């Protein structure tokens, strides 16, 4: 791959878009994020106003497939698997582009795992996983529509998933 594909996608067409987000040398571009979820993606990655990392966020960018999408670029960082799992919950169509020396060296779509461990909090307040017991929350995942079923209490979470992320 010759050149950062995600960069090209963002910059193709107009000069205005080119100015919106500059190419990065090393890092990760998370593209095709469900519109409106970029700030939740930042939250998952632990990026707040006090970060020292170079981060670019684009929201509601016109996109062929999704009509509009969000994009997050983070310099000098590659994502952990648990972070990708979390992102897949709120942005199931997102793509992860790993950039080294301005080139995309890996590009893949996020994929919802069949089971999620320690990623979400069960929203049933009476669930045993919400107590002092030494247990980690665990959910089985239904992909379409996204539904998470607690393996302990059988409670199903289908809405407001971002609010339940640990």
């Amino acid at each position, binding site marked *: 791959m010759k050149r950062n594909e995600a960069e090209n996608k963002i910059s193709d067409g107009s000069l205005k878009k080119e100015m919106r987000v500059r190419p990065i040398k090393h890092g990760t571009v998370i593209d095709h994020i469900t519109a409106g979820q970029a700030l939740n993606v930042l939250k998952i990655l632990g990026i707040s106003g006090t970060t020292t990392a170079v981060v670019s966020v684009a929201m509601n960018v016109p996109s062929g497939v999704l009509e509009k999408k969000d994009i997050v670029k983070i310099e000098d960082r590659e994502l952990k698997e648990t972070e990708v799992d979390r992102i897949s919950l709120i942005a199931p169509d997102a793509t992860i582009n790993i950039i080294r020396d301005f080139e995309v060296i890996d590009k893949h779509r996020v994929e919802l795992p069949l089971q999620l461990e320690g990623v979400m909090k069960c929203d*049933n307040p*009476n*669930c*045993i*996983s919400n*107590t*002092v*017991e*030494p*247990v980690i929350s665990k959910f089985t995942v239904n992909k379409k529509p996204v539904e998470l079923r*607690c*393996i*302990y*209490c*059988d*409670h*199903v979470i289908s809405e407001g998933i971002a609010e339940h992320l640990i």
Partner: protein
Amino acid sequence: MLRHIISMKDFSNDEIDIILKRAKDFEPIARGKKSSLLSGKILATLFYEPSTRTRLSFETAMKRLGGEVIDLGPVEKSSVAKGETLADTIRVIGNYADAIVLRHPREGSARMAAQFSNVPILNAGDGAGHHPTQTLLDLYTIMRESSLSNLRIALVGDLKYGRTVHSLAYALSMYHADMTLISPKQLQMPDVIKKDLKKQGASITETTNMEDVLGDIDVLYVTRIQKERFPDPAEYQKVAGIYRVTVELLEKAPDNLIIMHPLPRLDEIDPAVDRTKYARYFEQSFYGVPVRMALLAMAMEVV
């Protein structure tokens, strides 16, 4: 692998049939015939919530099979009161007993206990979650007093909070029963459960009127509207006593109808109904003994 008994969802139809068949074999012992099948075995009962029928029928089942029972006793007098976690209690008791019966107020507690236990866990109710031994004794009652094939059953009362009816409805869907759900609007079965049942291929009809369906069913399963589940007492008053099975109501009932109730009852079944040919709720509570015998024997791998 340990055979825990946590939820009806862990059982296949074949497994349920085997348990029901074994329960029938155990019935003479439940009625007093001597047995030493579980001689030398110890069952621990851990009840973090009050229980009469479930606890006593488990104890009866174990003792009639020649086994011994140890009991945690009132929670406030045990190490639980000192703040011990359930996970630790289970690991400790598992070193004393061959199986543990657990009732706990938190949903999912039995599933978690199974992860920490080196002996089988038998779930005797986890909050508003599962109560599989009740469901199995309900199925057994239907098998003995009516029939599980081509069954037409109506579930009446609190279908929103009642864990018994959720587990039972799930199990009945495995037998392709024709189910009628009778409840006031505010106590209808939760959508997520109905969705699960439909996924299993269940046939479900919902209504608020009990009288209309009596002529077309084989089993009327009545439940108590539980006052303790209502956040607002005024809401309870609106639905309390809404369904009442009386001798007069049963005038239209077919001869082969049976009436079941997990007990305790309040006023939802008039005591005069007890003397009719339809009443089966006391037989139902007896059947808890042979069914729990079958489960204990299975969990302790002696049959």
